[in-house]
């Protein structure tokens, strides 16, 4: 169990699971009537319960952990395949793009909350900084859009420095207050600030990469697809990059240092850890993720308004992190999918989504605090596979 089995056969359970998931997603996303969607949802829950009972899920998890590289590639291929299946369905593609945007955002929050233990109740605010950066810069400057996306991240990280000192100096509830106050302050600020469009918000230009106008429908030979395919390609790359960086961080001394700071500051200090250093690192990187995701989202959506950056939205982001499992990167991916897609497919639920997710998080915290996909122990697996002299 401690050494990964290198046989090809042991890869099968995880690949089969991903394929099954992809096929399921196609049916779920294509489902038109509410009855079909509901039936599929109930079916999924029952199937998962049965698989858990027969220990199929354990086998899948083991297989995925033993073959992280191939497993990740299969997942990406499956996501790409699902997107291509819906090549001309703008609604589904926009939904999938949104999921990827939130995956990137929540990975950032997971680095903060799951790794180093800084609970950020202003995630939507830092996301909003990225959005507004993109809206303002695409309108008033001719900067390359890729640079604007990076700038969105940098500005979010920079704004994080404003509340850095109180975040570092306080603990527990007092620290929570700082980000809560900041989130409320930020939204009020946006609403009353006329330069930034007030409650109406701003328009943002579509993404343009090196002359490729991503906002135009795609036509290659006989193939004609929605322009959202282009956006998905970009955000998929960003999310993969974000995931790899978070994964590398986890499987390194930095991940260990952050865990130590989260679990016991006194012990960490007695073994030389600088507590502010790791909190600043995680907080800044997390906000950078949020800002990058926000800048991209503004370009994909085309307009932004303060109502997207409320305290309630920040809570949804944190709910995703908790639902997936603190510090669990794959958990964040799965939980984002659940939290974003289900209410969109269920127009009845749309109205009730805040209520349902709040109730769901209460239940998770009471009965399964480790989340849907609990974070595995650090095994330095990404390091073990690397060649090198010892």
């Amino acid at each position, binding site marked *: 169990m401690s050494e990964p089995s290198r046989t090809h056969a042991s890869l099968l359970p995880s690949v089969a699971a991903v394929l099954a998931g992809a096929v399921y997603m196609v049916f779920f996303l294509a489902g038109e009537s509410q009855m079909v969607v509901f039936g599929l949802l109930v079916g999924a829950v029952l199937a998962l319960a049965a698989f858990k009972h027969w220990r199929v899920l354990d086998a899948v998890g083991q297989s995925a952990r033993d073959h992280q590289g191939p497993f990740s590639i299969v997942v990406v291929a499956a996501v790409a395949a699902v997107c291509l299946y819906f090549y001309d369905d703008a609604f589904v593609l926009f939904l999938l793009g949104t999921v990827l945007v939130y995956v990137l955002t929540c990975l950032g929050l997971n680095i903060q909350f799951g790794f180093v233990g800084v609970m950020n109740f202003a995630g939507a605010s830092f996301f909003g900084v990225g959005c507004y950066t993109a809206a303002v810069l695409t309108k008033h400057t001719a900067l390359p859009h890729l640079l604007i996306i990076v700038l969105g991240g940098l500005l979010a990280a920079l704004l994080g420095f404003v509340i850095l000192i109180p975040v570092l100096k306080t603990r527990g509830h*007092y620290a929570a*207050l*700082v980000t809560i106050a*900041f989130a*409320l*302050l930020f939204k009020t600020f946006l609403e009353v600030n006329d330069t930034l469009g007030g409650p109406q918000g701003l328009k943002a230009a579509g993404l343009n990469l090196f002359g490729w106008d991503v906002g135009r429908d795609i036509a290659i030979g006989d193939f004609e697809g929605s322009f959202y395919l282009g956006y998905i390609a970009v955000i998929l790359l960003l999310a993969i990059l974000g995931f790899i960086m978070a994964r590398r961080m986890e499987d390194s001394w930095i991940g260990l240092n952050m865990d130590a700071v989260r679990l016991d500051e006194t012990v960490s200090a007695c073994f030389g850890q600088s507590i502010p250093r790791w909190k600043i690192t995680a907080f800044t990187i997390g906000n950078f993720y949020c800002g990058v995701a926000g800048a991209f989202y503004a370009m994909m959506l085309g307009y932004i308004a303060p109502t997207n950056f409320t305290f*309630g939205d920040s809570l949804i982001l944190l709910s995703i992190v*908790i639902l997936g499992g603190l510090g669990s990167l794959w958990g964040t991916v799965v939980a984002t999918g659940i939290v974003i897609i289900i209410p969109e497919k269920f127009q009845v639920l749309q109205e*009730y989504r805040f209520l349902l997710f709040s109730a769901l998080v209460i239940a998770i915290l*009471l009965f399964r605090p480790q989340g849907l996909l609990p974070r595995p122990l650090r095994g330095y697996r990404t390091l073990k596979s690397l060649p090198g002299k010892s």
Partner: protein
Amino acid sequence: MDIGLIAQQTVNGLMLGLIYSLVAVGFTLFFGVLDVIKFSHGDMLTWGVFTAFSVYLGLTLIGLAAPVLILVIVALVAMAAIGFLGAAIAKVLIIPLKGAPPLNTLLITLMLGTVLRESIRLFYPDGANPKHFPALLPDWSHSWGHFTLRFDNALMLLTGLLMIVLVQLVIKRTKLGMAIRAVSQDEETARVMGINFNLVVYVTFAIGSALAAFAGVIYVLYYNELSFNMGLLLGAIGFSAAAVGGFGNIYGAIVGGFLFAMLQSIGAAALPFASAYKDVFAFGVVIVLIAVKPTGILGEKETERV
């Protein structure tokens, strides 16, 4: 600015300060007995206001026409109902999580707040829209120059201050208050001394929640409007006030409440071109204050046992 306007602003600031203090006292009481933050506190206030509103509608429906009597009944029923709800929440959600990381309780109650808020929006008749709350107190007033003192405002301020004094007396002078303080000091010892820990927690949560309902009734009498999300900001302000004053300290909560109202007034006065920035200003100052005094103005310095 003339004297009349300043006086008007002062009455306004006092009223808000009073409401914030009442909410903050609840936060600090809960923190005292259990070291938890119950973030749904603001939404308990909303529930209090909506209970009051429903009772008012019911009473007018059966033909009761004496406004002051209606008000007394409305306030008492709201306080009793919300007090009971507070104790029930303590029993079901707060006490079972006693051993969990403290931030879990904060998160759970944040989510509970959303549940409370959303249930009003979704299930109360026409809950998504603001509603008008009638003036139930006589509209007598007296003018000095530009300044008009309204009788109902004076009465509300007075009742509110009396309520704070009353809570203070209960905490300082009664056996119940002694039990609450004992539990705050040291739960283990309090248990050994024969204090029924759970009962003290229930009662504390009932008192704190009833105070929120009371604050809500004052708020809605003052502004004559209620809506499903009014509690979110009031809760956040009460939380800020309790934190700035120092959690667990009742005087701190009162000071914090009035301080926040003062900051808003200063913000509105100092930025007359953009009085909408007053909350931005007030929360900004709160963040700075927390950076300077990480455990509040009157809070004790935390020391960790190693």
